[in-house]
């Protein structure tokens, strides 16, 4: 098959924005992109948020989401110019010849309908199959995607299957009408690494077996390298580089691509534990009120002054709950927390002001961690005023110092959070925590909502600040690459229990326990055949047992 299935030329897309106090205006978000997709091939799109990758993906369905409009260019699909087609033709195309897999399956499925009904809907609506044929096809797709119970899983409702399974159901949904092209829009981004690898393998196999072409959109180069034949690197709506997967990974030509490939290359030499730990969590057991299930079971953790302890685990492992217990938001049912030599009161309202000051927190979503109606100098200034009673010029001076410390210069004091970029927001949150002159900062997934390059910047900043301020970090994350970059010691958690702990070199060196092994081997590597090798390795091991 050498005929071009999808041919895109000079694609320009703009969006209408509504700045306050000004007339609405159009801004270009994609500036003339060209690409081809051949039948049965997979083209990966990679770039940071705002690069226009999802928008381009949707353009393959002649669709602009929200106020987005395709302003110029040609999109030929199966030889037809779909931008010039009438709405009737486009309707036949969408859900028939081109289908779409979105990032959040949980938000995209209708919770009130059974999975089977939704998976077969498009195929039946398009008149491609009868209900019976479509259901048979769905069952065979469920089996191919490795879903348990392929015969009956379609009778369940979306909330009755796990996140990874639902994402696979969505892939089945997209493949059910026998499309020529599937647009995958970050299909594994919302999943844990250990789930991601299975979904990725399932998607790859399904693409190969059905011979469908695909656009695969993601911000994770290591992931896209596993499934794509070609990769296009995008930055701010323009193409940076295009090539085969092999060439992009092993021989990137552009500066930006090289930065993406070498991301997370921060080196950090681990420090040895000191005599006296700063934070000592002993035998903590905790549960949420109104439940009869212990979220944390007999957890012991130690953190030394000026060092970084990373707590790793997938969602549901209890790592964020541990942070809530340490901050006092969730009093534990058993166990004690010793901080700087004194026992912390289990309950937040009874803690001393000094304890509150010395233990600060940074959140995952900087958006919601700052009051949208406060300007930056209020956000950073409040802890100064609250803990140290600073006022007027003295306070302004300190705010300026803090802003310089987080590498934001002048002109940020009077901005609202909405006027900052994602990375800048997180920096302001760091400044707010630093303003209290803490001994310990709890960082709860602080980089997971950020683009890789921006996240790198934040991690470097945190490491520098640690040297200057001698502050300890309790770093909660699911991302092992981050852990390797900054941790001195590591705790691996699984289902509320500590399965492994020690210094970084101890934890990351064999022999591994089963869970740590699974976790470590699930992290995608920038290597072409990583996925196959890992899956084959696992099959072999389980066969041997």
């Amino acid at each position, binding site marked *: 098959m050498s005929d071009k299935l999808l041919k895109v030329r000079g694609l320009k897309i703009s969006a209408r924005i509504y700045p306050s106090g000004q007339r609405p205006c159009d801004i270009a978000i994609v500036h003339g992109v060209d690409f081809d997709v051949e039948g049965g091939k997979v083209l990966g799109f990679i770039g940071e948020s705002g690069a226009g990758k999802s928008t381009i993906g949707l353009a393959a369905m002649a669709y602009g989401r929200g106020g987005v409009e395709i302003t110029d260019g040609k999109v030929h699909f199966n030889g037809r110019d779909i931008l010039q087609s009438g709405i009737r033709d486009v309707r036949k195309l969408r859900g028939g010849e081109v289908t779409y897999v979105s990032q959040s399956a949980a938000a995209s499925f209708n919770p009130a309908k059974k999975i089977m009904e939704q998976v077969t809907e498009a195929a039946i609506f398009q008149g491609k199959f009868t209900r019976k044929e479509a259901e048979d096809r769905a069952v065979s797709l469920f089996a191919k995607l490795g879903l348990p119970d392929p015969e009956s899983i379609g009778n369940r409702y979306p909330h009755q299957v796990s996140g990874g399974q639902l994402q696979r159901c969505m892939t089945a949904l997209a493949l059910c009408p026998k499309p020529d092209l599937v647009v995958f829009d970050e299909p594994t981004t919302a999943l844990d690494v250990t789930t991601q690898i299975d979904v990725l393998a399932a998607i790859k196999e399904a693409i190969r077996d059905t011979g469908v072409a695909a656009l695969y959109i993601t911000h994770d180069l290591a992931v896209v390298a596993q499934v794509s034949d070609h990769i296009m690197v995008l930055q701010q709506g323009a193409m940076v580089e295009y090539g085969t997967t092999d060439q992009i990974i092993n021989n990137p030509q552009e500066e930006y691509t090289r930065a993406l490939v070498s991301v997370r290359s921060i080196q950090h030499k681990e420090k040895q534990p000191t005599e006296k730990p700063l934070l000592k969590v002993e035998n903590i057991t905790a549960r949420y009120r109104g439940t009869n299930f212990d979220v944390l079971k007999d957890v012991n953790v130690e953190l030394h002054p000026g060092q970084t302890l990373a707590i790793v685990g997938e969602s549901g492992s209890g790592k964020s709950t541990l942070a809530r217990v340490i901050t006092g938001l969730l009093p534990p049912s058993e166990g004690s927390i010793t901080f700087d030599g004194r026992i912390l009161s289990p309950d*937040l309202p009874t803690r001393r002001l000094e304890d*509150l000051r010395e233990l600060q927190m940074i*959140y995952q979503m900087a958006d919601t*961690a700052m*009051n*949208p109606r406060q300007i930056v100098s209020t956000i950073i200034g*409040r802890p100064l005023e609250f803990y140290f009673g600073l006022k007027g010029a003295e306070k302004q001076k300190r705010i300026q110092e803090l802003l310089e410390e987080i590498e934001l210069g002048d002109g940020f004091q009077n901005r609202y959070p*909405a006027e900052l970029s994602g990375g800048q927001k997180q920096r302001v949150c760091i400044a707010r925590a630093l303003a*209290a002159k803490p001994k310990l900062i709890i960082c709860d997934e602080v980089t997971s909502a950020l683009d890789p390059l921006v996240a790198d910047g934040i991690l470097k900043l945190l490491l520098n600040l640690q040297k200057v301020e001698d502050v300890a970090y309790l770093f909660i994350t699911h991302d092992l690459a981050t852990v390797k970059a900054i941790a001195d010691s590591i705790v691996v958690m699984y289902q509320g229990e500590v399965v492994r702990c020690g210094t970084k070199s101890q934890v990351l060196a064999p022999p591994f326990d089963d869970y740590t092994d699974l976790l470590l081997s699930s992290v995608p590597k920038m290597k072409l055949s990583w996925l196959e090798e890992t899956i084959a390795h696992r099959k072999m091991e389980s066969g041997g047992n």
Partner: protein
Amino acid sequence: MKNMSIAAMIGLFFTALYFLMALFAPLIAPYGMAEVVGDVWEPSSSEFLLGTDSIGRDLLTRLIYGGRTTIFIATMATILSFTLGSVLGFFAAVSGGWVDQAISRFVDLIMSIPSLIFALVVLSVMPTTTFILILLMGLLDSTRVYRLARAVAVDITVMDYVEAARLRGEKIGWIIFHETLPNALSPLVAEMGLRFIFMALFISTLSFLGLGVQPPLADWGGIVKENKEGINYGIQAALYPAYAIVTLCISINLVADWILNRTTSLKGGRG
């Protein structure tokens, strides 16, 4: 002000007109409020622009003074209901637990009694002074404001920035007034417009039923009541105050809409 819609301008114009008339009633009104100056239900003439009422008082004068009473009572009651309702609502949402339960269930109890019937029962035993009217209407209506304020604040108090403030050790006053209130302003302002209208309608209803503003003091509901017999003879007198009530309500709504549009477009404001 520049990119104001026509609807908003009309609303603002009428609202301003009514409020100014209420403020300067003694200067504008051609006659005294309770002064009998002509025959019963005289048609409009150059002497009496809108004619006279059921006992020969100038209707325009009555309307101007009536507007003053209606708007004054509605405004005061709205302010009372908002202060009380939103502070209690925020307090309940931020405190949570049994404090929230106790206040919410008490409010449910009050809301389960139809407010007009509640008001009629209370007014039948209490003296019907302006102060009692404002107090009663404000208290009854604060239950509705409480519901809204609590619902909005509950959404806000689970945000990370409120948690951050709690972790900092902030007192409940800061959390209510600095973290919650600014983010709850938009829905509250919209509700304020609506509530003011309900207040105006409520006081008019009470007066129409004879339990509101007592004669000889005029208010719009009362004027409708005094002149309602006239409708049988084709006399328009009862309709003028009704028009006034309608136009005031609509124009306030238009203004509230406009304010809502402006505040939601503020930086990062919630819708």
